[in-house]
């Protein structure tokens, strides 16, 4: 069986950034595997600007950000396979590939998972009514419009006011469609302020908060939908129902990490993130398999994806250099409390380095305290002007603080 030191699965920003860093760190034998015809992942369809301020110190569009990574990867002569899909990974790190050449299995000494995420399908939120054409997930619509140049309809309503929904509202308007409304179940938008101002307000597109779609009407093609306000338990209030005529309905109702391969490899998953459980080297519960980017947990900013992928690459290098565990090894779980919905990494094993603890809250908090405890001792405290579910937060604990973890039973991160 063919053997390779490091196989990276996925050629999006996470996979490319990991490959670049791994090569810069001196790993020679690398292979990037991408199922699409081109590298760059989801960035290729994100033609709007707002990427790269932290990594490249300039505001780029998605394709430009991808281009910079691809150019660097080519400069470093990193080998990659396109139109090749990873079908399976075993706990022994045998990677099964499918391409036009057929099926091949390669054994890797280390693997970095970078498969991104997928969109939550419409079925997941169950709306009664007909099943006509004209209903898309927002990401699919984005690909059809931006990459294939197709016209998807004349009048649209978008369900979900996260960034993807907002960006598609502007995009469809610019393509000549009449976007009648964005409908959001929650009393707040999960999207950035900037996107609400520049994607909706600029074009006078109304945002209906605390609303849902109660019915879909249309025989062959979508003809109309019925929306209604919801009460505090998110149940529709019948008296508020009203009809909106539209031939297109977009669903932008969340992203889920792509975790099938991790599961196949025997990697334990976190129920809250739907991604792998990792330690602070971004190593999963299977030795030598690392995870980063949207396959680990959903990121809002591609810059954070790149930085996380760099970490995974440095860890993979350390792993490839010495398979033995270092004396600084512990096993301390990270638990969440108060308003914290999840935190990554879920386990601390290496106390020789600083820790970047990434977390998200479940609701909006103004003037809240973010606290970190080692058992009962408070080691970090900061008051934040605002925390929202739409924005990932990062708490950095210095190596000096982490060194104190030797005899600690758990780390707790709390928002109050």
């Amino acid at each position, binding site marked *: 069986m063919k053997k390779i030191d490091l196989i990276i699965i996925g050629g999006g920003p996470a996979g490319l950034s990991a490959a670049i860093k791994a090569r810069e760190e001196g790993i020679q034998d690398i292979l990037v595997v991408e199922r699409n015809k081109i590298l760059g992942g989801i960035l*290729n369809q994100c*033609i*709007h*600007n707002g990427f790269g301020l932290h990594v490249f110190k300039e*505001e*780029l*569009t998605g*394709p*430009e950000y991808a*281009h910079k990574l691809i150019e660097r990867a080519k400069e470093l002569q990193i080998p990659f396979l396109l139109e090749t899909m990873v079908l399976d990974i075993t706990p022994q790190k045998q990677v099964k590939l499918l391409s036009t050449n057929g099926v091949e299995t390669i054994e890797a000494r280390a693997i970095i998972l970078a498969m991104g995420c997928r969109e939550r399908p419409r079925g997941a939120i169950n709306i009664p009514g007909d099943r006509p054409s004209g209903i898309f997930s927002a990401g699919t619509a984005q690909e059809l*419009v*931006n*990459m*294939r*140049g197709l016209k998807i309809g004349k009048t649209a309503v978008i369900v979900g006011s996260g960034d993807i929904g907002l960006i598609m509202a502007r995009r469809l308007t*610019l*393509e000549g469609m009449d976007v009648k409304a964005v409908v959001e179940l929650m009393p707040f938008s999960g999207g*950035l*302020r*900037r996107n*609400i*101002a*520049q994607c909706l*307000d*600029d074009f006078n597109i109304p945002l209906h908060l605390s609303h849902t779609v109660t019915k879909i009407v249309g025989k062959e093609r979508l003809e109309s939908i019925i929306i209604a306000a919801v009460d505090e338990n998110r149940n529709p209030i019948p008296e508020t129902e009203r009809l909106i005529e539209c031939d297109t309905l977009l669903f932008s109702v969340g992203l889920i990490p792509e975790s099938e391969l991790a599961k196949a490899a025997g990697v334990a998953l976190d129920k809250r993130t739907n991604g792998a459980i990792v330690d602070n080297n971004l190593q999963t519960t299977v030795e030598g398999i690392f995870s980063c980017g949207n396959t680990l947990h959903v990121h809002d900013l591609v810059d954070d994806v790149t930085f996380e992928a760099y970490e995974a690459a440095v860890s993979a290098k350390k792993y490839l250099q010495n398979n033995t565990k270092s004396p600084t090894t512990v096993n301390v779980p990270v638990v969440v409390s108060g308003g914290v919905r999840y935190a990554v990494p879920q386990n601390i094993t290496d106390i020789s380095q600083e820790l970047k603890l990434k977390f998200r809250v479940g609701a909006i908090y*103004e003037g809240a305290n973010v606290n970190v405890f080692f058992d009962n001792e408070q080691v970090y405290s900061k008051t934040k*002007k*605002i925390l*929202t579910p*739409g*924005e990932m937060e990062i708490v950095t604990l210095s190596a000096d603080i982490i060194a104190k973890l030797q005899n600690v039973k758990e780390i707790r991160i709390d928002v109050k």
Partner: protein
Amino acid sequence: MTIRQEFICIACPIGCSLIATKEGGNISVAGNRCRIGIQYAIKEMTDPRRVLTTSVRVYNGGNYKMMSVKTAEDIPKDKMLPCLKEIKKLDLQGCYNVGDILIEDVLCTGVNVVATRGVVL
């Protein structure tokens, strides 16, 4: 004459509701919690600008491919739709690289329209 406009500040997720009032040459801003809010409201009232992005067809070896493009800098907000019309008029063929200029000084804004993704045969 007094002009009054309302904005939601985009500087941070708090999203203060700003009210900008213009009287003669003076603009006063209310509703902000920090200085950035004042600057944002004044800019939005006097010279709002946006970067415009879209994608265009390129005829390339018998079929067409989509190429993403942008205005290399921000343009006045009210020029967005007119500039979009100019971009849609483009009739492109062949190969392009990231950064290639497709329209120079689009509608006298002083800003070029450039490719953000390459197209090869």
